[in-house]
């Protein structure tokens, strides 16, 4: 192994090796730097080199001044640390205001303690410890060629001795033996979750209700059912969830709706009129990009905006995408009213809601074909 060898030219030979034993390193002023620091270096690799000052001791008077400063900083750390403990005892938490006071007191004292300790040590290093400009040799990382040769030989010897090379059957059955064991941990992970099946294609809007009647739309948060006649202000928008699933996050993650009311002349061809009731339209609130709730609405333009990546949907026109990364419109839910005049779902969505997935396919086209 010579390729990496870094030659050591004559002039690199150290002017003097530090490490020559000598008891106490004398404290010297900066002028005597070349004499300093011979005391301690046991490592033959550490040298002084031309142009590099070596160990330069601080001026003792200045070091003594620094000492007083460092001592002051350490004392501040002590006081701040004590204050931290006192603050812990003195300030209780609970209300927002009390928590804030406790937080400032604890954090403030902790910060001061850390900061002054850090400054103290830095000053110590800079003003009291000597300045070091030591030179240490580097050696190439690679081992020498004799070592490499030895390792290679030993490896081959061992491999041959073990019989791994000669006994083919041994080798093959060992591999065979390892395969199922290696797979076992993966198999064990299977029960992490159920398989998706067709669950992504349905929402609870299609699930039968207890009494067999269509499922009502209720206001998110209050759980109030919505009387069609009361939701009469055009331009209004409401976040709506399925009755009976108001607290079920799994259901809400797919079934949440936005409900809007239009004047009849505002509705464009993209919206399925059969699925509206008296100008009231329901779209899935789950963005078809990656599933954030598309929660923002601009009344004048009828734009639904998803705050996550700003996909923009035209609510008057079947919620088709007019800007942003979402590739599909927000699915529309067929709605009508029940006997008491409350808004209900007439059926489930006819396409999967929310983000795209591999098995989804062009569900919109399929739905159109089915109808035709």
């Amino acid at each position, binding site marked *: *192994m*010579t*390729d*990496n*060898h870094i030659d050591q030219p004559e*002039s690199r030979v150290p002017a003097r090796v530090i490490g020559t034993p000598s008891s106490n390193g004398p404290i010297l002023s900066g002028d005597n730097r070349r004499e300093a620091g011979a005391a*301690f270096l*046991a*490592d033959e690799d550490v040298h002084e080199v*031309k142009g*590099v000052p070596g160990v330069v001791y601080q001026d003792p008077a200045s070091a003594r001044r620094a000492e007083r400063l460092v001592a002051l900083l350490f004392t501040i750390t002590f006081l701040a640390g004590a204050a931290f403990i006192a603050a*812990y005892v003195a300030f209780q*938490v*609970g*209300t927002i205001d009390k*928590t804030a006071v*406790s*937080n400032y007191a*604890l*954090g403030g004292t902790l*910060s001061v303690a*850390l*900061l002054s300790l*850090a400054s103290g*040590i830095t000053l110590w*290093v800079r003003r009291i*410890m000597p*300045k*070091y*400009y*030591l*030179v*240490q040799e*580097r050696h190439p990382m*690679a081992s020498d060629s004799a070592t490499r040769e030895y390792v290679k030989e030993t490896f081959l010897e061992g491999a041959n001795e073990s019989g791994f090379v000669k006994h083919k059957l041994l080798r093959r059955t060992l591999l065979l033996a390892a395969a199922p064991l290696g797979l076992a941990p993966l198999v064990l992970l299977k029960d992490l*979750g159920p*398989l*998706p099946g067709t669950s*992504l294609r349905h929402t609870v809007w299609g699930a039968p209700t207890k009494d067999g009647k269509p499922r009502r739309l209720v206001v998110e948060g209050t759980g109030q059912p919505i009387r069609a006649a009361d939701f009469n202000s055009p331009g209004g928008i409401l976040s709506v969830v399925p009755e009976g699933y108001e607290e079920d*996050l799994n259901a809400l*993650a797919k079934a*949440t709706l936005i409900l809007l009311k239009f004047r009849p002349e505002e509705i464009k061809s993209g919206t399925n009129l059969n699925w509206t009731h008296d100008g009231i339209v329901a779209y899935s609130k789950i963005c078809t*990009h*990656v*599933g*954030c709730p598309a*929660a923002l609405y601009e009344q004048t333009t009828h734009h639904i905006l998803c705050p*996550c*990546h*700003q996909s923009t949907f035209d609510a008057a026109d079947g919620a088709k995408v007019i800007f*942003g*990364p*979402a*590739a599909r419109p927000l699915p529309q839910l067929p709605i009508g009213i029940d006997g008491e005049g409350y808004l209900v779902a007439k059926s489930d969505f006819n396409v999967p809601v929310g*983000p*795209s997935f*591999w*098995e989804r*396919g062009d569900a919109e*086209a399929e739905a159109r074909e089915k109808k035709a």
Partner: protein
Amino acid sequence: MNTPPKAIADTSTFLDDRLGAGRFLKRNLRKVFPDHWSFLLGEIALYSFIILLLTGTFLTLWFKPSMGEVTYSGSYQPLVGVRMSEAYASALNISFDVRGGLLIRQIHHWAALLFVAGMTVHMLRVFFTGAYRKPRELNWLIGVGLLTLALLEGLTGYSLPDDLLSGAGLRITEGVMMAIPIVGTYITFFLFGGEYPGHDVISRFFTIHILLIPGILLALISAHMILMWVQKHTQMPGTGRAETNVVGAPFYPAFMAKAGAFFLFTFAVIALLGTFAQINPIWLFGPYTPADISAGSQPDFYMGFLEGALRLMPSWEINFWGHTVALSVLIPALVPMGIIMTGLALYPFAEQWITGDRREHHIADRPRNNPHRTAIGISGIAFYGILWLLGANDEISANFKVSLYSTTIFGRFAIFIGPAIAYLIAYRICIGLQRKDAEVLSHGVESGVIKRMPNGEYIEVHTPAAQDIADHMRGKELIPVIESGVDGEGIPPKSARTALGRLRAKMSEAYGTDRVPFDGDGHAHDAGHHEEEHAAVGSGGDHKQLH
């Protein structure tokens, strides 16, 4: 002091008798560490990690990683009576019912930001100074792994409190996973234990966040430190510094004390931020529900570039044979991250291939002295930065009164043009700086003294540059160029005859050719006392033996 105190002497003897620790200490106590401000960047990341371990452990004592529903009855009045997950309730508890809990939560979050930021900037330092070159490629790869893991660690941690904001991040994660072809829905169902959000993800993320990833991080960071220790730190060029040595301060006592102080400084800064700069006030967001989102929600900064990529993308989607490939999700989620991480991981090897340089390097390059590398790095920063800015385009649009959509459309062009412009500018600047160095070396620096010549002309007197500055500049090392094109007899070497070989030779020439050779006294190869340095580097000519 002439003898060590008895307590220390006895302990040392005890340990040495049993471990032979003396031999190790003899070699390492006085290990020399070079100094440069940029070497502190990695330390920031290291110390932030230590702080994360300490504060994170504290948080685990109260945090309940459960999605079971509870009705909140703690001290924070506005949410009393609200139904929420146990995780969220316990995070509120840490904030309002545990003394110092809020402080530690905020310190933990700030430390996480500083951890990723420190790591990123440290990596840029290593890149721009070429400190990833042989023999340090393995440590570079470990670093790339650390950065990737840190992003994952941050993502899982951010999700734990289960507030409305963290839930939005989780939902996006789910949407991205679902888009993965063939296996997307399966891995999503496995992660969430069924349909989103399910009841398992918080406890699973908890295990990943406090055990799995920190364990791997700890192992990798230790390996990173050991390699650094064994290979010794790189140093900047300068007086007395050579490829064969390290110039600096000994580990004991100077470096040790400095490092300790720097840990305390890092901790102090994070503590200050944790005290006075509110971060992630989860009580304002409310519990998670997939039906709602808080407007203007922003992820932590290190996720910003992914967010920007998602925002930038046009709505492309492919449907065929009943299957869907959601390009508008897959491309932004995988391509930028892929380009950046793979690019980083492969760069040392690509550079070696292009330059044919298989020597060891211990003197750090000044960025200007490898203009193509620097330009590539800057162009990567531009790429990342544009994505990152686009991740906040709603804020930009609101604050600067430009239309939201024009920021997106601007971004769609900028992401291609920006890095190219950045490349050109960075390259020109490097060459300009090299010229300046060459000028300083050959003509000296302006002394500020104006002299009137006999013919009436005024000139400024130049003096030679100070020794240390000149040495720093002369440390410029030429980038090797592989034998290319034609030799004396017009026959290209064998390796350059294939198309790939010719491309390699061309790239090598472009990459390595020195555009600003130092002339006269300044020339790196002419300077008498520098010959040794270059001789010391060795030609590396017989490197083939290794392979």
